[in-house]
């Protein structure tokens, strides 16, 4: 049954990748990347048990903690860009 879950996760990763490729907005891509992160965490946890080496759950833990940073960084980048756009139009601070 680990195999079944792994296959479902892999297929979902493919679907998320299609969404990331299609876009259309940058937020769709970001959503797909975030989904990809969650799916990777699940995949790694399942595969750690599939391999019978549960001590490798550390990896999934890293992703669960760090994946967040990527999303936050992109949002911060978008905010900076919007700010500078606004400043250029003379409408902001």
């Amino acid at each position, binding site marked *: 049954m680990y195999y079944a879950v792994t296959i479902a996760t892999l297929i979902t990763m493919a679907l998320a990748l299609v969404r990331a490729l299609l876009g259309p907005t940058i937020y769709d891509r970001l959503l797909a*990347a975030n989904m990809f992160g969650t799916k990777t965490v699940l995949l790694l946890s399942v595969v750690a048990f599939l391999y019978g080496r549960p001590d490798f759950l*550390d990896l999934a833990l890293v992703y669960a903690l*760090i994946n967040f940073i990527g999303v936050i960084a992109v949002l911060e980048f978008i905010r900076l860009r919007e700010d500078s756009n606004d400043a250029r139009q003379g409408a902001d601070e």
Partner: protein
Amino acid sequence: MIILFGIFLLTLLVITALAIVRSESLFAAVILTGIFSLLMAANFFLLDAADVALTEAAIGAGISTVLFLGALALTGEHERGSSKNRMAALGVVTITTLIVIYATFDKPRLGDPDAPVQQHVGAWYLENTPKLIDIPNAVTAVLGSFRGYDTLGEVFVVFTAGIGVLFLLSARSAGRTEEIDPANVPNRGLRHYLVPRVVGRMLIPFIFLFGLYVQFHGDYGPGGGFQAGAIVAAAVILYALLEGEAEALRVLPLSVLKWLVAGGALLYGAVGVTGMLLGGNFLDYSVLASDPIVGQHIGIILIELGVGITVTGVLLCVFHAFAARGKV
């Protein structure tokens, strides 16, 4: 079955890489790079390389995205199309691909136990790690002790790269006259996103704690200085993203970071020199304690600490160097 999973992931990897190269928006390309790194780490994991997957996780998911975005903020996010010799490049690339694929037919297949890589020094390492060093993680043993010189070299490369970025980006550009004072820069961080701020602040201590765990548990499980350095740096970068960069600089000033960069590399070197002073060879940890195995343990923990400190320092210095220039 596992091999099929691997091949599926590789297919996704190739598709992602193609999309990265084709995408005209560099911003989208950077986000796709994040996905690429996730796929790569999953692949490493399926190929039994837990330590490498951990490194890729710590670096690829957060820090490399942050660095690329930092550079994009300074340079602009659209490319203006390919150069003129696109067809020639395509031809060269196709031919080279075919040659490389042709060459792979002579390679031992995946997982062949008789492949040369399994025979020589690799087998020796696996056999002697329990005898000479007595820690479970053979990767850490090879990294820290058997190939300590190599790692020292890598640490100095990281160190040099960090110094290089500081040199490049602390030079004042011709067009920019006034020095930017980090105190009155209107970089408020993600102030108006309340939920991420609260949750992010809650996460930071855990990321730190986990970084320390990875650092000091590296002898027994996947982990070590390189990964831990990246994780700790990621925690500080998260803080900088949430609270504004000036706030992060107040907590960990640039002067401290510079000391970290140099101090880690120095600690590594000092362990080596101590070994020499105690009558062993450079980076021979067996003389650090009366029992050679205990000596090895002490040596590995110290040099991993040095590696971790340098990596943290360099990554944070680089981040701040980009961020300080990025006041658009």
